[in-house]
Every structure is written in structure tokens, then in C-alpha cells.
């Protein structure tokens, strides 16, 4: 049975411009074995904020789950203010993550943009455990927004692109990929839709992408978060991002 659970905040610190890392502990953490799954997080007191916020699992270590979030509105602002020791109510783990189990001894490319970076870290750790070699390319707005660079470097090579060129390559993650012409077996990507589109277009190898959409229930009941599915695959024609995803084979979905 799934349930809601109050997780305890163990840590909540700023790690980049407007970006925080929160560590939480509780029973359901032990079920968080799949990178790419997410927590559906209740924010605020009372019912002024009726919807939960989906946030990706960034890492699981020492019975703690990490989330990395960018402050953009009420919910993330509220999260940033919560002190260690407080509890946060979550539904978790939700969704289907990156299928990494069968990936062994390959060269894998991870492509992340902004707040799409966090889930790739937990994935990188899982892939590394399975003997894969990992190259990561991360895109950020500017130097001050960068986080987790060293963490990824410990697991393989890590390239950075910034929109304004203030650090690493000026441009997008796809620009780095073009430049470097890696030879990789498959890729995993998470980031804003325009980035994902560019990634899919520029890559000729198989890949998985993680999608974002505004959510209601987070569990598949409300049909808020559908995306178009590739018609060749089935006639249903859609996927629910919260339940069927958020991770899909790049060939399975059609981005808007």
C-alpha cells in the first residue's frame, strides 16, 4: 500500500543561486531505489495551497533522500524556510524512473539542465555501481547557478555549459556534445522541454528523457499531466507523466 508520510528534515542549505538542497529521512526512503522517481511534496499550512509540488529524488544515502530545488514560487520559497527537525509531508516514491538495472559496462551520457540536474546524480551513482563509465554535461544559466559539478566529476567526466558563458562552454548542453563528439552507447536526459527537444534531435543513439508538467494528483488519477505518445507504439496516444513517467524512452513520447 502507498501512503502519505511525514519525513523529517535533516538538512536544508543553499547550494547555488536560488537553489537549495534538502535532506529528509523517514520510512519510505528505503523504497526510493529508482532514480528519476519523485516526491509529491505538501507545502504550506492549511489549504491555501491545495496542490502538492513534484520534486525529483536527487540522491539517497544514509537513510536520507536529497532533493535539490530552485526557489521560483510559493512552495519552493516555503521549503527554503523550513528548519531542520520539522516534518514535510510527502507521497513517495512516485512514478517510474530511469531503467538503469540492465545498463552495465557501457559508456553513458547524462545531459541535465537546471533543476533537471538533480535526478541525474542519483542515476549516475547507480550506473557507476554497475560498472558503466559516465560522461555528464550540465547546462546552467550562469556561473552562480551551478551545483553538483564536483559530485559528478567524482563519478566520471563532467562538462558545464552556461547560457551566458560565465563558466564552461557558452551555450547549451547540445553545443558541448557537438564539440566533443563523444562515442556513447546511450543517454539519459532531464531538463526544460526546449533542451530535451534539442537533445533528442541531435542524438542518434537510444536515450531516455524525464519530462515535467504541472500536476494535480501525482498518481495518475486526474489526467493533468499527460503528454502525447508516439502513435507507432500504441493507439492510446498519450502517457501520464506522473504515473507512466516521468522518465520515458525518447522515442515513446512526442514533445510539444
Amino acid at each position, binding site marked *: 500500500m502507498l*501512503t502519505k508520510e511525514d519525513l523529517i528534515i535533516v538538512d536544508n542549505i543553499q547550494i547555488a543561486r536560488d537553489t537549495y538542497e534538502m535532506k529528509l529521512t523517514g520510512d519510505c526512503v528505503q523504497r526510493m531505489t529508482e532514480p528519476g522517481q519523485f516526491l509529491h511534496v505538501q507545502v504550506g499550512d492549511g489549504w491555501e495551497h491545495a496542490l502538492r509540488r513534484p520534486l525529483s529524488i536527487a540522491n539517497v544515502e544514509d537513510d536520507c533522500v536529497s532533493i535539490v530545488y530552485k526557489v521560483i514560487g510559493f512552495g519552493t520559497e516555503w521549503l527554503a524556510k523550513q528548519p531542520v527537525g520539522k516534518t514535510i509531508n510527502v507521497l513517495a516514491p512516485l512514478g517510474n524512473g530511469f531503467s538503469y538495472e540492465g545498463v552495465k559496462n557501457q559508456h553513458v551520457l547524462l545531459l541535465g539542465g537546471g533543476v533537471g540536474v538533480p535526478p541525474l546524480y542519483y542515476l549516475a551513482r547507480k550506473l557507476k555501481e554497475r560498472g558503466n563509465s559516465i560522461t555528464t554535461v550540465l547546462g546552467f544559466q550562469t556561473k552562480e547557478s551551478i551545483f553538483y559539478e564536483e559530485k559528478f566529476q567524482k563519478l566520471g567526466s563532467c562538462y558545464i555549459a552556461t547560457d551566458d558563458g560565465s563558466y564552461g562552454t557558452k551555450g547549451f548542453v547540445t553545443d558541448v556534445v557537438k564539440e566533443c563528439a563523444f562515442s556513447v552507447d546511450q543517454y539519459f536526459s532531464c531538463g526544460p522541454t526546449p533542451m530535451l527537444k534539442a537533445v533528442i534531435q541531435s542524438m542518434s543513439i537510444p536515450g531516455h528523457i524525464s519530462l515535467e508538467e*504541472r500536476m494535480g494528483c501525482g498518481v495518475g488519477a486526474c*489526467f493533468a499531466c499527460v503528454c502525447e505518445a508516439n502513435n507507432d507504439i500504441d493507439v492510446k*496516444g498519450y502517457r501520464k507523466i506522473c504515473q507512466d513517467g516521468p522518465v520515458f524512452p525518447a522515442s515513446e513520447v512526442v514533445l*510539444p
Partner: protein
Amino acid sequence: MTLFVQLPGLSLRNPILPASGCFGFGREYSQFYDLNKLGAITIKAATGEARFGNTTPRVAETSSGMLNAIGLQNPGVEKIISDEIPFLEQYDTPIIANVAGSTEEEYEYVAKTLSDSGKVSALELNISCPNVKEGGIQFGTDPTLAASLTKRVKEVSSVPIYVKLSPNTSDIKEMAMAVEAAGADGLSMINTLVGMKLDIGTGEPILSNSTGGLSGPAIKPVAIRMIYEVSQVVNIPIIGMGGVTCKEDVLEFLLAGASAVAVGTANFRNPLICPELIDALPELLDQYGYSSIEECIGRSWKNARQSAAISRT
């Protein structure tokens, strides 16, 4: 203390049911609790053919509420009967099927197909979905159209019909009386208010459909008012809904005149809300001196009528 409520076609072990569109076809929340807990289950709207709904974003948060513009996405009535309802048949909980369409013919077809399937206990006629471009909303705001539609659906259906009313109208009583006269066995109210939220960054509506349906605690005062007004002028029962989040809300809906209470938006924040409400009801009723659901229904205006009657004698 019994929570039992008998409504046309529906023997409810308790008055709590999920609202249509907020509970899919039951599978997802069955991961959280045993659906035999529920009084009944209202499933997502069915249309004649599969619909893919509106483009995303389909939801937005507002103060104490949310907007949705799903656009009646569903696999079509036949697939619902063949692929979705069988899952729910393992439970001993009445199923209410929500019926939608763009034309009278479509409504009629969907209602007949569901009724003929023998798998649902009642139909909820969704004449009030604000999120589809054609159909839906006109039926919900024109008493003549609503009555005519109710009549047609009634004729092809062997299970009771609950007509789901739209709050986007200046005279809800007129609507209610029109569909009652046309043969409705019950009412279901309220559906969502039409609303909109802008993204001040882009300057444009957040929902790709521009407008959406407002639900959640924000609309509860409107729901209570409409149920209070309508329950006094009709003789058919009302399934009440609109912003229920706690046990006190359930009692408020019953007192206003609802005979059962549906929970929509609150499921998203608290997937266990329905069983939690059901467990809390006996003590709550006891605390306020009620010994059955029946006693609560319409108490808000029955009290006043009784004291008026007393003062007249």
C-alpha cells in the same frame, strides 16, 4: 451509529464518495486503501468516443483552490466498460458513471451503453463541464436544454440519473426544478466555477485552454448556498460537493441539504481523505447530537421551518 444512506439506486454504507474526475477509475487510490471503505465511487466522465482532452498545462493553483481544464480526456464509453469498470467490480461499492457529450445523441448513447452494461448503479449527467469548447456548458446554463437532455437520457436508462449542476448560473433553483420535472432521480452539485489565472511573466493564461474550472475550499460557500437553496425546492436527493477537506465540511454539506458528500480536489493533497472522513464521522455526529446521517440532512433550513411553524401556532 449508522452511516448508511439510501438514495435512488444507491445503498451507501456511508455518505462519502470521491467526485468524478478526481479519482480516475479507482485504480490509483486503491493503492492507498481498500475501496470497500467508500460509500460509492464516481468515475471519470465517459464520452461516446475516446477524447484526448486539452493541451497542457491543464491545472493551476489558486488561493484555497485550483483550476483544471482536463477537457474530458477518456478512452470512450466502450473502453471504459471493457477495460476500466471490471477492476472496480472486485469491490462491493456502487459505481456512479459520469456521462458527458457534445450532443444530445452522444449523451444518450453513452448513458444507454453504460446502463445496458449492467455494471453501474447510477449515472451522473455532467451537463456542466466548463472545459470543452462545444457542448457541455450550454446544457448546464439553459434549463430548457437541460430538461430536454435529462428526459432523453432518462428514457434510455434503466438506472437512476443524477444531474450534475453547474454553479455558473444566476438561478440554480430554476435549473434544479427543470431537471427534476424532466425526471431526474437526484442532483449532484456543484461542478466547478469558470475561472482563470495569468502567468504574469508571460502575461498569458497559465492553462492552455485559457479558462478552467475552479474547485477546492474557495468555492465551498457557493456550494453550500446552492445546496441550501435547491434542497428546499426539490424532492430529489442531492449529492453535495465543492471544497470538502475536513469532517466539519461533511456535516456542513449534510446540514445544508445534501444526502451524500463527494470529495474532489482534496484527494490530490490527501489521498487518504475519504477513509479519514469516514472514520471520523461517527464521533463527529455524536458530538453534535446526531444519531444518523438522515437526521442531519437539511437541518439548516428544517430547524428554521420548525421554529417558524411553532411561532405560528
